[in-house]
């Protein structure tokens, strides 16, 4: 027995010694908090000619690749903002500003023809790729050719397919002629939140086909942005070095590291230990947690143009005038605008914003929140449970013994009891429970059903609940920007109601309203922003008056960054990466 005890004690001592040795190694090699803690290994071997400046950001996901024509992932767009830029971008105020272009084309400077069909871009003089090769109009033409080349497989050719020709009369001029009016021309060859029109290097990629599988999209050799990728360790991190040939001011940081950190809890801990300098992926529900870490960790909340919304299944199997037929009829009471209005008035949206979102965002009035396209004359309907109950009474839905209203709908006694589908994100779960409680007060039974995003957003051919009309109410986040119309048209048009003939239709509301189609067409009938604004204002008012959707809250981008890191301004459309050249460390 004693011998066994001796063995045990010996093992414990040995284990302790081993752990101490490991721990000792940690102590001996651990860098002090601060700049050195975030330096890339690459730098450790460089000669210390000058104090190199380095910062490390943590992203929750790894980009698929760095050429956004082949991915729609936000992180790919972000890395493209840092490395492969476009002709123009949106700044922190949401204004369209030049990048590689010398100026934004307009009617005044002759960049936009009178008929709106020809756009002429002028490039900055002396542009260079990071390897020193000249960046010219030929690269823009090459980019267009690559997007349209049938041998390549970009995810989207939207807009590019409306271009009849791209001409390059000289190295600095690009003349784009559209075959038909395309008001969203600003989203082509430019960097935006939902579009990333990186200009591709002709001198590197010329003669190649099937670019989607070319090594360049994972290990690019040149860059036009402020940084160039020097190392990409799959699943772990990227190292970017300053591009000395960047067109703008010389980037301040020598190195930017991007570490892929899938959990926000880890990112939060890493911010506290100084392992990373910033994290751009917090959700609205993290606002209070991050805020509590001031002054070591700073919180930045930027209300965006995305919005969380709930909506009604407005599908009809009959369609309208032979168009927009859905697979199933929606929940009958939702066809009555007063029921939709009552549900909107019966949800205390401002309370969610104040309590669950720390009051850092707003209840939006329309589908273009915080944007120049927003119809400022409208105000969000305020919480009014009494008014909501009165509307339901008026619509013929009386309270039953079980506390749930019921009434006649198309000749059938119908209970105001319906399902609500959304994803299983915790914030959505919390808000759905609060909505359930609110609606119960006006005699409406709201039954939330949460699924993983991959299931909830499944397409028609995969039996997705939304395109097949197999839902009553649903909710998720979307946004129609930077150009206001393409997303709206896809979401509200009779032509995009999904059915067996049009399985890829994106009209998840299943609404087919000729008046909506007419208003959207008006918003897309001109390239003149002022004229478009009038039409889009009217469109917003129509959607608002008809209570087609319940606008829940404007989504916010939530960033946390440590005190030593000095970010630039945070873009309204273009996040914090739009001006990475000014990033600095104290």
């Amino acid at each position, binding site marked *: 027995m004693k011998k*066994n005890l001796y063995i045990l004690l010996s093992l414990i001592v040995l284990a302790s010694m081993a752990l101490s040795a490991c721990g000792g190694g940690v102590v001996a090699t651990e860098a002090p908090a601060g700049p050195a803690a975030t330096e890339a290994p690459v730098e450790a071997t460089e000669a210390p000619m000058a104090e190199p400046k380095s910062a490390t950001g943590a992203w929750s996901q790894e980009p698929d690749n760095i050429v956004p024509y082949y991915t729609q992932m936000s992180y790919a767009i972000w890395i493209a903002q840092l490395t492969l830029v476009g002709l123009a971008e949106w700044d922190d105020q949401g204004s369209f500003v030049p990048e590689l272009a010398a100026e934004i084309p307009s009617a005044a400077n002759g960049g936009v023809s009178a008929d709106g069909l020809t756009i002429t871009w002028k490039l900055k003089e002396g542009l260079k790729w990071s390897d020193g090769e000249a960046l010219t109009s030929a690269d823009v033409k090459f980019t267009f050719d690559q997007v349209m080349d049938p041998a390549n497989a970009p995810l*989207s050719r939207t807009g590019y397919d409306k271009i009849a020709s791209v001409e390059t009369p000289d190295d600095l001029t690009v003349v784009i002629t559209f075959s038909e009016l395309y008001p969203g021309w600003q989203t082509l060859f430019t960097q935006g939140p939902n579009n990333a029109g990186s200009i591709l290097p002709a001198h590197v990629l010329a003669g190649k086909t099937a670019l989607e599988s070319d090594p360049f999209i994972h290990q690019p050799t040149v860059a036009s942005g402020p940084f160039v990728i020097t190392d990409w360790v799959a699943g772990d991190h990227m190292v970017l070095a300053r591009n000395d040939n960047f067109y703008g001011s010389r980037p301040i940081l020598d190195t930017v590291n991007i570490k*892929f*950190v899938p959990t926000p809890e880890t990112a939060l801990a890493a911010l506290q230990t*100084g392992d990373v300098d910033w994290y751009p992926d917090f959700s609205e529900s993290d606002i209070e947690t991050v805020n509590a870490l001031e002054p070591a960790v700073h919180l930045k909340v930027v209300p965006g143009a995305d919005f969380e919304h709930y909506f009604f299944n407005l599908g009809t199997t009959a369609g309208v005038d032979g168009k927009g037929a859905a697979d199933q009829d929606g929940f009958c009471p939702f066809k009555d605008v007063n029921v939709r209005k009552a549900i909107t008035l019966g949800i205390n949206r401002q309370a969610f914003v104040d309590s669950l979102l720390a009051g850092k965002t707003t209840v939006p009035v329309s589908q273009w929140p915080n944007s120049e396209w927003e119809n400022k004359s409208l105000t969000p309907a305020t919480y009014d449970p009494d008014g909501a109950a009165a509307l339901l009474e008026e619509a013929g839905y009386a309270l039953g013994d079980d506390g749930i209203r019921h009434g006649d709908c198309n000749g059938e006694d119908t209970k105001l009891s319906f399902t609500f589908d959304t994803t299983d994100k915790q914030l959505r779960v919390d808000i759905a429970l609060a909505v359930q409680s609110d609606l119960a007060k006006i005699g409406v039974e709201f039954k939330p059903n949460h699924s993983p995003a991959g299931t909830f957003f499944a397409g028609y051919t995969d039996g997705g609940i939304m395109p097949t009309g197999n839902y009553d109410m649903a909710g998720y986040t979307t946004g129609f920007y930077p150009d206001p119309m393409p997303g709206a048209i896809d979401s509200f048009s009779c032509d995009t109601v999904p059915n067996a003939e049009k399985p890829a239709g994106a009209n998840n509301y299943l609404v087919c309203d000729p008046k909506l189609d007419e208003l959207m067409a008006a918003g897309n009938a001109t390239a003149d922003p002022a004229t478009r604004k009038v039409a889009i204002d009217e469109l917003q008012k129509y959607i608002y008056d008809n209570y087609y959707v319940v606008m829940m809250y404007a989504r916010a981008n939530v960033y946390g960054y440590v005190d030593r890191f000095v970010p630039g301004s945070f873009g309204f459309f273009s996040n914090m990466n739009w001006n990475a050249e000014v990033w600095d460390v104290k």
Partner: protein
Amino acid sequence: MWAYIARRAIQALFTLLIITVLCFILTRLSADPLAQYATNPNMSTADKEALRERLGLNQPLPVQYFKWLGLAIQGDLGNSFFSKQPVSLMISQRLPNTLKLMFTYEIITILVSLVLGIISAVRQYSLLDNVITTFSFIGFSMPIFFIALGAMLIFAVKFKEWGFPYLPTGADIWDQKDPLEYIKHMILPVSCLVIIGTAGYARFIRTSILEVLGQDYVRTARAKGLSNRMVLYKHALRNAALPLVTIIGLDIPGLLGGALVTESVYAWPGMGRLFWEYAQRGDFPVVLGILLIISSAVVIFTIITDVVYTFVDPRIRLS
């Protein structure tokens, strides 16, 4: 024996085929690869239709499966729908990290469990046994994310705050070619896995040894005058190790799949994260590629375990 192995290998092929069918169906039904584009305003209806056709997702499920299987039989696991990279390349980038993490964990777990299990059994109902048993139950019942995040909070965040030497969160950029850095970054994730793993193994070993210690031949050995040490190590442990061989043999292939939660919490670029990230997006070439490798390992190690049994247990003979 060779005939036995050959027969088992043929059976394994059929097993693998069934596994791939089930996994394919589950993967395809659980997530639509194009779901992430559902609300993207930059992808028109026509774009989505074209993409669905290009990826072959508009074809009937059996056609999609047999196309994948045809390539897999030739050793081509296909390309990821999203990264466009060959699945084999993606796996080869992650597998070494997972193997380093998981085999370190497995070896430490077995060693620690053996020590604790033996002590616990030999000192049954002693204070030490009760302490080990209590901690085993605690370790067994605690979710790994709780342990992982708790350890990170204490040994990384709080230790730094208190001015102690602290361990990295894993979210830092570090030189993976530096062995010291590697060890430093493995301490927390491996420790968390060991806490969970040891709890189960130690209980198993304790029970197994106690069962053997009650056997007639152990009593006979003692009656012959053998020392407790000889009885334990010469007779009891060897026999108690038999079921352990089975468990370890079946656990090893599972190690290839990595540890999803631990890898995620400690930002470890392993197979678990790769699987989870692409499963969420319905990227079935990646998911099936990983599952095929793990399933193959399971069947192979099951055969190996059976063969090893013949060496450690003379009562078993393959025929």
